[in-house]
């Protein structure tokens, strides 16, 4: 019982998630700065931002729904933290797993986006409302290809559990190669999920200030920023667990490999963010539905055929 609590709250649970999220944010900003030929922030920058926001005044707009305004950042952070429990970090099994936890993780990931939409909607600002509408529109665009891409490898593994999938692909490493188109789709739509450039029109700073977070300040903004960082870790770990299940049986070595894999995925995300300009919201929908969804559909058909051949 105590061991379970330590696993969920400290390592590899919430505390590790928060610290690693801040580290990845630092790395992301550093890579972004180096590509622009700058020095970039010092290593403690995300921590300093977080602590500073904790000490600031909280202003709640008079028109907003006060209860929802206060509760949404915490719900969003809690959803990410509880999704992270099902992802294998230390060793090849996660802190908790059951048949079907992949679906749970995908739905918990959706809750954070819904929280952002509601945060913008309830704060009643003009920019916040536009931002929340765009968040929802973008969600309908990226969600289908992302889910299809993440569920396609599960068809071959014949299990809906992330731990089960890593175990299957550890036994049959050649099947990883089949899922490469799905990895491609997952990386691009994952960028859309994280609302980073080129898919950052929901919080486009030059158009709508900062989208749904416009009215947030102080501690509430700090929790939202932390949940965005944690979401980055979650998506990177999910992609690395499903598409790159390189595993040894030594737990510490597995942990090091996990760190290397997530940092590698983050570097791809950062490069995408720094070299591309922002798409308009209609262009995002077009890209996701016209290009990514057909690729994911073909992937699912191929995986179904391979699954049929395997059972013969």
């Amino acid at each position: 019982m105590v061991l379970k609590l330590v696993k969920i709250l400290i390592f590899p649970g919430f505390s590790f998630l928060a610290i690693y999220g801040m580290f990845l944010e630092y790395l992301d900003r550093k890579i972004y700065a180096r590509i622009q030929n700058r020095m970039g922030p010092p290593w403690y920058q995300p921590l300093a931002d977080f602590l500073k926001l904790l000490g600031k005044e909280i202003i709640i707009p008079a028109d907003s729904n006060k209860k929802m305004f206060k509760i949404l950042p915490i719900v969003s952070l809690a959803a990410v933290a509880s999704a992270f429990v099902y992802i294998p970090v230390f060793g090849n099994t996660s802190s908790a797993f059951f048949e079907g936890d992949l679906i749970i993780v995908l739905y918990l990931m959706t809750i954070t986006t819904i929280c952002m939409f509601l945060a913008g909607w309830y704060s009643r600002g003009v920019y916040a409302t536009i931002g929340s509408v765009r968040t929802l529109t973008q969600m309908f665009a990226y969600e289908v290809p992302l889910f299809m891409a993440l569920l396609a490898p599960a068809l071959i593994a014949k299990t809906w559990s992330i731990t089960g999938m890593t175990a299957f692909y550890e036994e049959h490493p050649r099947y990883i190669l089949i899922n490469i188109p799905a990895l491609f789709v997952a990386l691009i739509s994952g960028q859309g999920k994280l609302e980073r450039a080129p898919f950052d029109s929901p919080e486009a700073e030059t158009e709508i200030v900062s989208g749904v977070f416009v009215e947030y300040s102080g501690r509430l903004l700090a929790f939202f920023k932390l949940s965005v960082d944690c979401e980055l870790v979650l998506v990177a770990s999910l992609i690395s667990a499903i598409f790159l299940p390189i595993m040894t049986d030594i737990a510490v070595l597995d942990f090091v490999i996990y760190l290397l894999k997530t940092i590698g995925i983050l570097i791809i995300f950062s490069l995408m963010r720094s070299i591309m300009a922002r798409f308009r919201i209609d262009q995002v929908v077009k890209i996701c539905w016209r290009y990514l969804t057909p690729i994911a559909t073909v992937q699912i058909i191929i995986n179904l055929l391979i699954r049929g051949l395997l059972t013969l």
Partner: protein
Amino acid sequence: MKLLEKAINWATRKSPWIIHYNSGSCNGCDIETIDALTPRFDLERIGIIQQGSPRHADILICTGAVTIQTRDRLKQIYDQMPEPKYVIAVGTCACSGGIFDGCYCVMGGVDSVIPVDVYVPGCAVRPEAIISAVQKLLDTIGESKKKRDSNAKSLADSMNNNNLTRGMKNNTENNAENNGQDGGDLCAS
């Protein structure tokens, strides 16, 4: 409790988020402010990020003399910022009204509407001066009020001893003479 306060003071010094507002400037100081945010100066090294929303910002960088049109908006932006908040008046016009002082539509400097923490004179201000002003402001965060007052007093004393005003007066006189001579030369040629 004291440790937490120290940590938050440290974090406030290390992560100043700025918002830039033009309250009636000629755009000279605005160009220099944007210049200070370019990769050449790389303000992210000392944690500065430009924010669009006043709710996220700690420091209001205000350029230009305050006109009647922008007075209410400046006040509104200042009120929207969460505590602790600081104001830097960038440019001679923001400090005192500059050459626009006494104009029918000008209220005066930024301090005629909202309290100002740091004044940066110059027309237009150099980006280095803005960065230095932000750094000087951050150094005072966490200091006790007594210490800050004594610092300000010693600064004022040193300025009085240097007789800055008299020096400036002499300069202007010299300039006037020079100008006269120049004018004469121009006529002769």
